[in-house]
């Protein structure tokens, strides 16, 4: 224990002497947490619509104004032909083309049935499906409220048989605001990047400078050395996490629904796992370049597959398994559950189990992989 204290003293001195590291540890996540969610808005809004009205009737006008006033769509152009409208899609200026055919009103009244064309740019799947279904709903609503329908159907007739009234609500986030989903997740990502990148560069730097020789030739135990590296970053991580929670509260008004203690407890275990991962990379690499590239490789995977932006359940089985093998997936899940839904320990105990297993394996591996004698 005494030796560990000397190691810690040394690490802290080195960290506090390096002003760039301090600035990076505290400023980067705070600033990024303030800025990033502004840029990362996945909410589907501003769907751009190009309209082809070949009928120019009062019905077509009504339909267009109904779509326009719905608030979901931004009308970018009115074109005489589908071909012209499609150009907007090709130039990425429109997402959807609504085509009202010639004779729309006449055919509707005469035949009781008329088609309209919806052409959706389906490259961006989310936008396509949400945009398409909004437009479908608006058209259905328009149809139901058509004058001729109201006249033709007596109220009893219309509702006579079976009518199912669907009401819905989104709990824990009644206004379905995207920031509640994103901000806690970004906090986890930033914490991971700080902890992962800095710890992965740490031991390898001692290797490059040569000071590690002096450590290897001393009777320090391997676990003491790794623990000496881990604890300072762990403390910094907890401070960064606290700063992040303050930003969530001050800037975004997000306050944890669930117990803060539970959140911190999980963060504590999570940091151990992530730092162990960084230290493992550090022991594997020969130089900082390799460490950096390896860290980058895994950070990309963590960012894109950890369920931060896309749902983990929708992935294919094998990808979901990979995702579940990453510590970040579990922390993102837990942070959302506890902060947004107020879930308690019983709800997240399995995640605790996973994260502790990761922590033990990653740190054990790092200790095992660190060779005092080659």
């Amino acid at each position, binding site marked *: 224990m*005494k*030796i560990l*204290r*000397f*190691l810690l*003293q*040394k690490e802290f*001195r*080195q960290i506090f*002497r*390096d002003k760039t590291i301090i600035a990076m540890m505290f400023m980067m996540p705070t600033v990024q947490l303030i800025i990033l969610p502004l840029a990362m808005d996945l909410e589907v809004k501003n769907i751009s619509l190009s309209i082809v009205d070949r009928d120019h009737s009062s019905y077509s006008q009504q339909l267009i104004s109904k779509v326009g006033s719905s608030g979901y769509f931004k009308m970018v152009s009115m074109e005489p032909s589908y071909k012209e409208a499609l150009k907007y899609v090709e130039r990425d200026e429109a997402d959807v083309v609504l085509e009202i055919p010639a004779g729309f009103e006449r055919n509707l009244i005469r035949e009781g049935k008329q088609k309209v064309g919806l052409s959706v740019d389906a490259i961006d799947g989310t936008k396509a499906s949400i945009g398409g279904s909004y437009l479908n709903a608006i058209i259905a609503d328009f149809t139901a409220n058509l004058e001729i329908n109201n006249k033709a159907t007596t109220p009893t007739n219309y509702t006579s048989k079976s009518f199912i009234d669907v009401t819905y609500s989104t709990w824990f986030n009644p206004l379905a605001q995207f920031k509640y989903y994103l901000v806690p997740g970004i906090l986890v990502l930033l914490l991971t990047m700080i902890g992962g990148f800095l710890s992965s560069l740490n031991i390898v730097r001692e290797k490059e*400078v*040569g*000071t590690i*020789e*002096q*450590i*290897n*030739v*001393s*009777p*320090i*135990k391997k676990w003491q050395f790794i623990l000496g590296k881990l604890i300072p970053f762990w403390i910094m991580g907890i401070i960064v996490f606290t700063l992040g929670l303050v930003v969530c509260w001050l800037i975004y008004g997000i306050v944890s629904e669930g117990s803060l203690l539970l959140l911190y407890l999980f963060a504590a275990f999570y940091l151990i796992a992530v730092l162990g991962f960084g230290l493992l990379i550090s022991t594997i690499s020969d130089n900082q370049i390799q460490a950096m590239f390896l860290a980058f490789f895994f950070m990309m995977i963590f960012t894109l597959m950890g369920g931060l932006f896309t749902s983990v359940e929708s992935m294919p089985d094998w990808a979901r398994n990979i995702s579940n093998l990453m510590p970040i997936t579990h922390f993102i899940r837990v942070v959302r559950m506890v902060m947004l839904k107020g879930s308690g320990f019983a709800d997240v105990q399995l995640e605790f189990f996973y994260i502790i297993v990761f922590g033990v394996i990653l740190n054990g591996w790092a200790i095992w992989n660190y060779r*005092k*004698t*080659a």
Partner: protein
Amino acid sequence: MEEKVIICNDLTKQFGDFYAVNKISFDVYKGEVFGFLGANGAGKTTAMRILCGLSYPTSGKASVAGFDVYKQQESIKKNIGYMSQKFSLYENLTVSENIEFFGGIYGVERSEISMRRTDLIERLGLEKEVNKMVGELPLGWKQKLAFSVAIFHQPRIVFLDEPTGGVDPVTRRQFWDMIYEAAAGGITVFVTTHYMDEAEYCNRISIMVDGRIEALDTPENLKKNYSASSMDEVFYQLARGAKRSDN
């Protein structure tokens, strides 16, 4: 008979089919200054790293301070000091902090550390530099400090790997005074060097060529045996036949 602190028998280190160290055998006695000479790439550093417990030997036997180099590296490490070729104190820690850290990780008590530190800084004349970063010191001072740190925990043996590389002659002289002082205090000194004048300061020297020890004796005897007037000549006669060098 004097006490043997390093016993080395047919020690070999092989990298693929390359013999970095090829069956070397020698003993080092307590309190002596043992010079370990050889051209670049002769295998000195490799042999030294094995004795310090930094590297596993391929075959042969060796013990340092009574501990086996295969199984008891950690016990060896408790009893030795090491100063590597690459300067390896922390440049972004102060003089005082480096002493404290390295004393601490060898288990020296805090009160003992501060006592010895005051004493050490006075001896080195570093009073004004105590709170300077080590990176800001001139090379000669750094080396002297590194040596002092290597013997701070009073090890039984200290290993010095080319400790005076790049240092001016005056500082080298002072450095050797420190080595003698340590040896007089009972610390065995195992030192590698390129400088033949330094070799003359050693009690005994071994000369390595292509992974083997070609000669081992006191400087006087070596000069006599090779009918040379200086160690330089002895070394030249032996190293001329070398097949490998660094580059």
